[in-house]
C-alpha cells in the first residue's frame, strides 16, 4: 500500500505532515496536488525546504494528478497524497476511488460561513453534507490531525 495517506490540509506541507505523519508512516514521497503551487516554481522550492532530503516531493495539478494515481499507488515508495481542499480530494477520489479511498481530514481552518467541528476542522454545512455524500458513496472519511489524535468519522461530526 504505497499510497499511505490521502490528506486534506489547507496548510499543505507543514510540520504535522512531515513529522507528525511522515515519521510513523516512514514517508518517502509527498505528492502535493494544488493547481496554484504546481504553477509556481518559487513556491515549490519553499515547500521542498520543509521536507528532509529523504522525502521526495512531487507537485501536480488536479487534472494531471488523476491519471497518475494508479502509478503512484503501484510505486514502492511510501507516499502521502495531499490537497489543500475538499473539492480537490473529491476530484481525485472520483478519478480513482480505489486508490483514493481513505480520506484524512487533517486541517481545514476557519473561513466565513464555516463552523468549528473539531479544533482543526471548520466546515460549512454544505461541506459537511458533501463529505457525508462522499462517505455514503463508499469513501472512508476520517478526521485526524496527527496519528496520536482520536480518529473521528464524518458521521460523528456535528
Amino acid at each position, binding site marked *: 500500500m504505497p499510497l499511505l495517506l490521502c490528506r486534506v490540509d*489547507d*496548510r*499543505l506541507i*507543514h*510540520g504535522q505532515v512531515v513529522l507528525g505523519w511522515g515519521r510513523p508512516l516512514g514517508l518517502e514521497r509527498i505528492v502535493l496536488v494544488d493547481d496554484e503551487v504546481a504553477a509556481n516554481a518559487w*513556491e515549490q522550492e*519553499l*515547500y521542498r*525546504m*520543509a*521536507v528532509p532530503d529523504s522525502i521526495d516531493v512531487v507537485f501536480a495539478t488536479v487534472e494531471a494528478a488523476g491519471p497518475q494515481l494508479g502509478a503512484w499507488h503501484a510505486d514502492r515508495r511510501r507516499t502521502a497524497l495531499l490537497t*489543500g481542499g475538499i473539492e480537490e480530494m473529491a476530484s481525485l477520489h472520483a478519478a480513482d476511488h480505489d486508490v483514493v479511498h481513505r480520506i484524512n481530514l487533517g*486541517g*481545514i*481552518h*476557519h*473561513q466565513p460561513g464555516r463552523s468549528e467541528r473539531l479544533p482543526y476542522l471548520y466546515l460549512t454545512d454544505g461541506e459537511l453534507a458533501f463529505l457525508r455524500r462522499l462517505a455514503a458513496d463508499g469513501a472512508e472519511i476520517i478526521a485526524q490531525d496527527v496519528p496520536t489524535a482520536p480518529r473521528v468519522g464524518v458521521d460523528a461530526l456535528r
Partner: protein
Amino acid sequence: MSELRGVVVGHGSVAQALVEAAEEISGLRGVLVPVSNTGCDRGALEARVAAAVGEGAAVVFVDLAAGSCLLAVLRRLRDREDVRIVTGVNLAMLVDFLFHRTLPPAEAAAHAATSGGSAIKVP
C-alpha cells in the same frame, strides 16, 4: 531615525511567550508584535502577518526555517525592501533586536541572527 518594528511569527503560543519574555527582560514593551498560526489557513495567516508588519520598516522573526509560518511570511513580504526575515527565533535574538532598532533592517536582522546563534551552546 525611526525605529524598526519587530514581528514574531510562530506555531501555537511560541510567539506570544517569546515576546512577553523579551519585554520582561528588556523593559521595552509594545515594540514586538506576536503572530500565531493557530486556527489559520494560509490566507488567514498571511493576513495576520501583513497586519502585524504594517507599512513601515520591520524585521520579522519566524520560529522554523520551513513550514507554514515561514511560507506565509515569504509569500506576503518577499518583495518588501524595507523588511528582513530571520528564522530560528530565540530569546537572545529578540532582546538583541530590541536594543538595535535604529539600524537599517538588514543590519538589525544580521545583528540579531548573530546574537541568537551565539546563544546556542552545549555547555
